[in-house]
């Protein structure tokens, strides 16, 4: 082990499970996944820590398991953030190019960025991400306006913010293990980075990560995250609907969902029935298959409708050429991509992880964890942490003038 080797942990504290991946980040910027730990989540509801002690125990159990499999200690953690408390807004700022020759300087870009980010939040809210959209110089999109000639420089930021106490709870769960949190990353951004390609993000794509308690979504356009959001509805609601509709326990409903649930109604025969357990034991019952599909598809449909509504005017089908990508644990539901495609009116598919990922981890449920490691590898990724220009004394002096 060289002194430049760092062991980073990707932690996702979900509603149903806590997932920890450990990556060995070498000096040459290569990352190897060397450890994996998973534990059933406790004390977390809809992505929010409700019972600190239970959540802490579950998370630390997963961390210990991962450290044990990796045979090393984690140096820092990249933590996924989700929950219904997360919201986002778009703020734009405009400046006139200050130089007489209309050459855009570093001061101009710095000023317009600070203006776009300078929007106060209500009390108790904290910024999780400032996601910058491309600059516009006299109306044209430019990745970097510096040294270009123009009159008017615009930039917009999609700011994701959440409730301070809930974010702090998440961080304290990790700090209780005495490991620092290096980065807090939105779950939808983490999974979206893994299941879409750069071309998809350039052409426009919606990533919907349906977990157990929450559904995280992100709309990408022009290569960057255009809008994000979280709705506190997930796969557990499908289970709950089945339990209520068919009068089952949660465990029975979950089994039925996994075996016969669908994103769309495929079964046309109302008389077709399926067994609850299939073992003909006492308590084993039959249920109409069409009813199961109707219940699961209705909730799935509703989730997509809510996402579409949340995106609002940001979503334009013509500017979402890469379609909609469904990921997360619930993405394993058959026909879910077809349901998404019908709701959004674009092509739909279930997110697939890159081929270089180990086959054991090539499951939509691990997309977020893998995305966190990807962010760890590219910790200066534009969307998570925009490159900050180093301002020297003279820059500050002229800026103040």
């Amino acid at each position, binding site marked *: 082990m060289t002194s430049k080797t760092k062991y980073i942990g990707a932690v996702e504290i979900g509603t149903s499970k806590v997932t920890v991946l450990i990556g060995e980040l070498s000096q040459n910027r290569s990352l190897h996944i060397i450890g994996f730990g998973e534990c059933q989540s406790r004390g977390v509801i809809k992505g929010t820590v409700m019972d600190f002690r239970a959540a*802490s*125990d579950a998370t*630390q159990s997963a961390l*210990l398991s991962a450290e044990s499999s990796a045979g090393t*200690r984690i140096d820092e953690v990249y933590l996924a*953030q989700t929950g219904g408390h997360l919201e986002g807004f778009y703020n734009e700022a405009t400046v006139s190019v200050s130089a007489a020759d209309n050459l855009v300087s570093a001061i101009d870009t710095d*000023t317009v960025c*600070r*203006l776009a*980010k*300078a*929007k*106060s*939040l209500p009390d108790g*809210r*904290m*910024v*999780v991400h400032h996601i910058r959209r491309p600059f516009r110089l006299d109306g044209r999109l430019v990745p970097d306006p510096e040294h270009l000639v123009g009159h008017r420089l615009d930039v917009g930021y999609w*700011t994701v*913010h*959440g409730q*301070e106490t809930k*974010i*702090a709870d998440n*961080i*304290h769960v990790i*700090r*209780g*293990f*005495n*490991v*620092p*949190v290096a980065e*807090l990353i939105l779950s939808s951004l983490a999974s979206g980075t893994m299941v879409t390609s750069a071309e998809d993000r350039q052409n426009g794509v919606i990533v919907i990560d349906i977990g157990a308690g929450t559904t995280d979504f992100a709309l990408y356009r022009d290569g960057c995250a255009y809008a994000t959001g979280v709705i506190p509805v997930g796969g557990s609601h499908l289970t709950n609907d089945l339990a209520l509709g068919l009068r089952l326990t949660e465990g029975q409903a979950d089994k039925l969902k996994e075996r016969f649930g669908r994103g769309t109604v495929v079964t046309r025969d109302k008389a077709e029935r399926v067994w609850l357990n299939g073992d003909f034991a006492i308590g084993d019952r039959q249920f109409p298959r069409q009813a199961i599909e109707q219940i699961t598809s209705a909730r799935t449909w509703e989730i997509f409708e809510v996402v579409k509504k949340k995106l609002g005017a940001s979503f334009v089908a013509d500017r979402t050429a890469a379609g909609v990508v469904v990921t997360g644990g619930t993405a394993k539901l058959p026909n879910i991509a077809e349901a998404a495609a019908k709701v959004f009116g674009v092509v739909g598919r279930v997110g697939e992880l890159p081929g270089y990922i180990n086959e054991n981890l090539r499951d939509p449920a691990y997309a977020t964890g893998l995305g966190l490691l990807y962010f760890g590898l590219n910790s200066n990724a534009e969307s998570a942490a925009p490159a900050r220009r180093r301002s020297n004394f003279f820059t500050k002096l002229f*800026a*103040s003038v």
Partner: protein
Amino acid sequence: MSSSISPSARSWRDIPQTIAPRAMSSTGRKRMIFANTKAIVALVIGCVSLWGGYEIFQTWETNPAKLKAPVKSAPVKNISLRGQNLVLDQPWVVRTLALPKNADLMELDLYALRERLLASGQVRAAELTRKFPDTLLVSIEERSPVARLNARFGEGSPEEFLVARDGVVYRGACYKDDVVKTLPYLAGVALKRNSGKLQPIEGMETVADLLTTARANAPTLYHHWSIVSLERLNSDGQIAVESADAGTVTFGTREDFYKQIARLDYIIDQSKNNPTPTPLKAINLAVGEQVPVSFQLPQAPPANSTAPAPAHPASASTHASRSTPRLVPAAASHPRNVRAAPSRPLQANSVPTHRSPRRDI
């Protein structure tokens, strides 16, 4: 303009990540203790290193001699000698090493001492090891002599040297006289000196092969050999041996020495079995299977004496070869004849009086 920009909203990074130990889990506390301990140990090591560096620097500045001999051990009290089949003894090693009185074990230059041992020539390899607190272990491997020679340096008196198989010439030490006296002398050797040291004799390996073959298979013959001449070794590939019972015996280096010694033994036996034995003058074993043998001319007999009729054809031919060498068929080339050779006991009074050829260098 910047003064009008309101400060950015609070980020999650503003949340303090410090956490009180009581709020940590037991695992977290253990990790914290481990991390703190590691930091303290690193700090202590750093401090000790700095202090050590400072002390060394101070000592270097004030008294550099202290740094040069930091370890003082006890003076050497024992010199222990180790090795297999050693002739050299412990007093010789002590004399050769010539350690100063109360020499400190740590101050000994083991390489220089090893060179002293190797300078004798009798020592093929030496290894010196310190065994604390006060013992010097000396492990040596010796050369075995195969011949000897007399040499005189300038106007000095002649000295006797021993020659090992690898041609190294050395003054033998601690050898018993009866061991040295059995060795034949070398002749026809041009000794060379280089920076005061005698150079090894070339071709000694071949000579050693002949001598060891003779000593192992025909010790009686070997004990009569007094001088081994290497004069024609390089030019003709021949080794001439002065033997008390066969005159000058010439061996060829192209043929197996074992067979040649067998022939020699056969010829000597034949000549001794002759009813009228005539002393052998020269035997040339280097020409192949036909061996020319020369006999010494006997004293002129009185005119009225009557020579007995030869009873054996060999004896007749012996008389016939007074002026010309007789060719003896190599019937003795079979090894059984050689094996028979040791059965002939060595006579106590048969040890020849060696003539020792002197080499002037």
